[in-house]
């Protein structure tokens, strides 16, 4: 087969395996985050642990999954039928609720694993000081159980001690066990499909195609980078605060473009902080990866090759390369979005006419936990809420849409009210929140939830002080608000807070709008 043909055939084959792993996981999982919101990713890796293909799942997992695989390879001598589990952000993970399962794929007659498959899913509770495991914390020890790479399955049999240890440390063990079973089955699907490919095409052909596809993604990414102006482009944005009175916390980037190579340097970024908005380097790399993936116009395989033209420098111990025992729960969901805002802000100078204004820039994480008065059972609800998309050079931003590092589905109101003691009072577009401009930024969302029992509410949100920026003369989007209606009084909550509320309290999330593009009144032609 011609290489040019083989590339396309195998791109389709590998991608469909990753997608099928995702279907298997999502349809059998128990955490609402996985089954309703699709907060998971599945990917396949070559013998060196480099990503070959990833399903169209969560962008924030893009650059970080291979670090889990690398950590598993480094720490554990994996044999056929083994599955390694890991969630430790400092050993290949991102934040504790994201649990990754890595499985080697052995081809008969070979001693070394020919490939790896892995999937990562956001579990709805992994212990720690608050239900839902997205707490307002100051160290990783408060955030939940930390699992270094270790065997969850050995020779096809679940390691009971490991499973029991994990389940003993979480609030909803039955659900956890179900999710892990779904994750194991998903990896098995990937293994089975890869072995079928080896049967059909032979190991050398499949392995060669994996290498070719990475080279190919690299060539396409370099081609896109050539479309950028050469030079040094700097940008600065900031996180409002860390929930413990520290802020604003600047994120600085300098991007140097030289023909088809790029250096992305975060020198000057704030040091790591007390609250949980610290990001480990895996997240920072994922965010940069995403920014360069979106400027490639052609459908390309999402793999290791995209990273090769990029050199990413992150100051050790900074907000973007936090070291233990930093709290990191919100780095994955909040800081990741600001890294994208910052990097795209710099890229806009090198690629005018392509990069949009800032999107909402926060996932508006809301966790509510307590006892369900209907049946006396413990519950933990966690969900993110979309905001407005930044306006594009040629079009308005979309209203009420998840952007950049996330694309999860919302939990339907009717499903929510079945599962939790909540009544949704209002769910609509937050009109007028998008920035004005030649093209308008998308509007955010307003969602009011009445809680029908006493509960603990935790909010992790940003862009409460600062606004999503406009570009080319477009106006900023409106910052977000969280309003608590308690005993008939309205009060604004801080962006990051955790508090007990009484039955009947209403939490009203009002998410930021996107920035506008171009000065209003300019001719849009």
């Amino acid at each position, binding site marked *: 087969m011609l290489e040019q*043909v083989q590339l396309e055939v195998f791109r389709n084959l590998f991608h*469909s395996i990753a997608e*099928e792993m995702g279907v298997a996981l999502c349809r059998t999982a128990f955490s609402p985050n996985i*089954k309703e919101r699709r907060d998971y990713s599945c990917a396949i890796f070559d013998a060196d642990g480099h990503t070959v293909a990833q399903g169209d799942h969560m962008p924030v997992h893009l650059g970080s999954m291979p670090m889990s695989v690398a950590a598993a390879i480094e720490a554990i001598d994996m044999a056929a039928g083994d599955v390694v589990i890991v969630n430790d952000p400092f050993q290949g993970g991102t934040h504790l609720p994201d649990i990754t399962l890595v499985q080697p794929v052995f081809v008969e007659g070979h001693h070394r694993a020919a490939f790896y498959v892995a999937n990562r899913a956001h579990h709805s509770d992994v212990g720690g000081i608050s239900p839902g495991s997205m707490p307002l914390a100051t160290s990783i020890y408060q955030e939940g159980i930390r699992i270094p790479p270790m065997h969850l399955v050995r020779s096809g049999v679940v390691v009971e001690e490991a499973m029991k240890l994990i389940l003993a440390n979480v609030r909803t063990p039955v659900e956890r066990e179900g999710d892990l079973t779904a994750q194991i089955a998903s990896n098995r699907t990937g293994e089975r499909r890869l072995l079928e490919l080896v049967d059909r095409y032979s190991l050398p052909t499949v392995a060669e195609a994996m290498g070719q596809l990475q080279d190919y993604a690299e060539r396409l990414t370099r081609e896109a980078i050539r479309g950028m102006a050469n030079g040094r482009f700097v940008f600065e944005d900031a996180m409002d605060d860390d929930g413990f009175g520290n802020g604003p916390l600047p994120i600085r980037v300098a991007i140097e473009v030289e023909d088809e190579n790029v250096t992305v340097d975060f020198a000057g970024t704030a040091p790591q902080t007390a609250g949980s908005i610290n990001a480990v380097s895996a997240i920072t790399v994922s965010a940069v990866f995403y920014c360069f993936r979106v400027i490639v116009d052609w459908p390309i395989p999402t793999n290791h090759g995209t990273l090769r033209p990029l050199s990413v420098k992150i100051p050790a111990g900074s907000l973007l390369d936090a070291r233990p025992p930093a709290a990191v729960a919100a780095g994955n969901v909040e800081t990741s979005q600001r890294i994208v805002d910052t990097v795209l802000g710099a890229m806009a100078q090198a690629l005018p006419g392509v990069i949009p204004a800032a999107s909402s820039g926060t996932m508006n994480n809301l966790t509510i936990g307590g006892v369900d008065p209907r049946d006396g059972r413990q519950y933990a609800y966690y969900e993110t809420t979309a905001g407005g998309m930044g306006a594009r050079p040629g079009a308005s931003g979309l209203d*009420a849409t998840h952007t950049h590092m996330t*694309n999860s589905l919302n939990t*339907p109101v009717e499903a929510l009210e079945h599962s939790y003691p909540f009544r949704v009072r209002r769910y609509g577009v937050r009109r007028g929140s998008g920035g004005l401009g030649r093209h308008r930024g998308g509007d955010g*969302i307003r969602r009011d939830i009445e809680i029908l029992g006493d509960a603990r509410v935790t909010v992790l949100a940003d862009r409460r002080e600062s606004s999503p920026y406009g570009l080319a003369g477009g106006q900023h989007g409106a910052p977000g608000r969280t309003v608590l209606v308690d005993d008939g009084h309205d009060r604004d909550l801080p962006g990051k807070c955790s508090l007990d509320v009484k039955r009947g309290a209403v939490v009203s999330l009002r998410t930021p709008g996107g920035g506008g593009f171009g000065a209003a009144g300019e001719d849009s032609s």
Partner: protein
Amino acid sequence: MKSTGLIGIDTGGTFTDVVYQLVDGSIRVFKVPSTPSDPSQAVLSGLESSGIEEPELVHGSTVATNALLERAGARCALVTTAGFEDLLLIGRQTRGDIYDLDVEKPDPLVPSSACFGLNERIGPQGEVIVALESSECTEIATRIAREGYDSVAICLLHSYANPSHELAMAAALRSAGVSYVSASCEVLPEFREFERCSTTTVNAYVGPVMDRYLENLERAVGSGVRIMQSNGGALSLKVARERAVETVLSGPAGGVVGAHALASAAGFDDIVTFDMGGTSTDVSLCSGVPSRTGESSLEGIPIRVTMLDIHTVGAGGGSVAWADPAGGLRVGPRSAGANPGPACYGQGGRSATVTDANLYLGRLSPDHFLGGTRDLDCGAARTAIEAIAQEVGGGPSEVAAGIVTIANSRMEGAIRVISVERGHDPRDFTLVCFGGAGGLHAAELAASLHMPRVLVPPDPGTLSAYGMLLADIVRDYSRTHIAFMHELNTADTDSLFEELEGQARVEVDSRALRLERTADLRYHGQGFELSVPWHEDSVDTFHRMHSDRYGYADRSRDVEVVTLRVRATVPAGVEVPLPGVIAEDVVAATPASITSTRFGDEDLPTPVYERTTLQPGARLAGPAVVAEYSSTTVIPPDWDGRVDEFCNLVLERNDA
């Protein structure tokens, strides 16, 4: 000979196909030109040409589909629970492509200015939390009527659990003079408000257009008309006027029903249908019966009615080959369409398509295309193939073969989705191929999936109209009812099932009515369900299906029911054609010509047969090409072909 009166008419883009049956069971087919500005003209002229006096018409209509695709539906309003007027605008908060900065969402069918909020609230158990004020209903209804909307969709929270508020609002609208009202509790009484609202709105949006069309048709033909729907069954004209949404995805349904009937008659119950056209390819799986799904959408708009589980990929004969800047060869999704069409059509197309590659490789016979009525420009195909070969840097033959291989890999992926991913092994299935371009690819596709056999029905171009003739009358009813199976109050479920069945008896008035109960089950806490027959062992069946589909079952987990379903069926009562007779000594088939065709790395001399000359019993050895009016079938070197007693062309691997 006299006809039975039964006639199937399928509206297509270019032709309207007419199929009817004579009293001896044999089938007659013909085509009339379609009349897109008023599709009923072609239907009436088809009826007239058939000479049938009191026709019993089964009709496949694209009126609702086109109204949605072209955004030419009714001016429609939406009534929701107050505070939830933006349901359609928000959707599920997601975007369609995570790496596309220019991604767009489909505009809602109802603009924000036409969304009205009603102060009322029902809880998840159907309990009334905020009672409805009838004065407010009247006020909103009057306003909507005054503003002159053609139709109204109503979707209130938890209406599947308690429809009283929706029904009251609907009554108010009707008495205010709004003629077309769709309440979500009637269209789709299932939970998940966005999908229910979207489906109901589609019904209200396309409904008035379809209603007018069918009213005219009824006036001309009488009420003995049935309409093909997305689930593969037919609908009475009266119901179709109220539930146009059931027909929106009906386009490919006739072909699947027809293919399934023909293959069953020929002895193959388990089939994968493969319908490859110019722009896209539809595949579906029948394991005894056609598979169905409730999770469909059109152009990004969810439509949650039951439909045949048909998977579509953007790869067809007209898919254009192109080179990306890194030297990769790509095929599609852009299609040359009918105009300019592939380069070989000689209509000014310059880009190499899959059809051009087939022609270049000698697999498509230029002398027999559309019965020889259309000249194929081999020179133009050659020029186009050579140009793309130079761009990607390969020999023209290799690149042409590569284009076919890539198209095959896309279609193989589609078949894997509906078979392997759903727990079926393709080795147990026969590939049934129809549509213009399928026969060129079917055997290679079957080989790569280890499918043992390909069946090409006679006259594959009219299979869809034929399927309509065979379609049973089918109505699907559903109701969300969430409960644990181990503590199920069967009195509750029985009375809900009986309610659904009562509805069925009213709507489908026939002595031959068959009712079938199923339920959607899941492990408590999961978000997706599997549909299983409702009986004492439903839970067992669920565990088994879960294991087949997803690789494991967990019998220690609680199973819950989510949605109850009743399917009402009245069999069409039409027999498939009688088998023909295979002569004692079959005359060996004579090729019309010998051509040179590329298989793998070799050019092989290949006989070309005209399908019309092949009698039942004829046997062919690969390599061979069978040409007929609307399609061409390639038999590769390691395959044999035969013509069975139904005139199907059956290809089987000869190494088995």
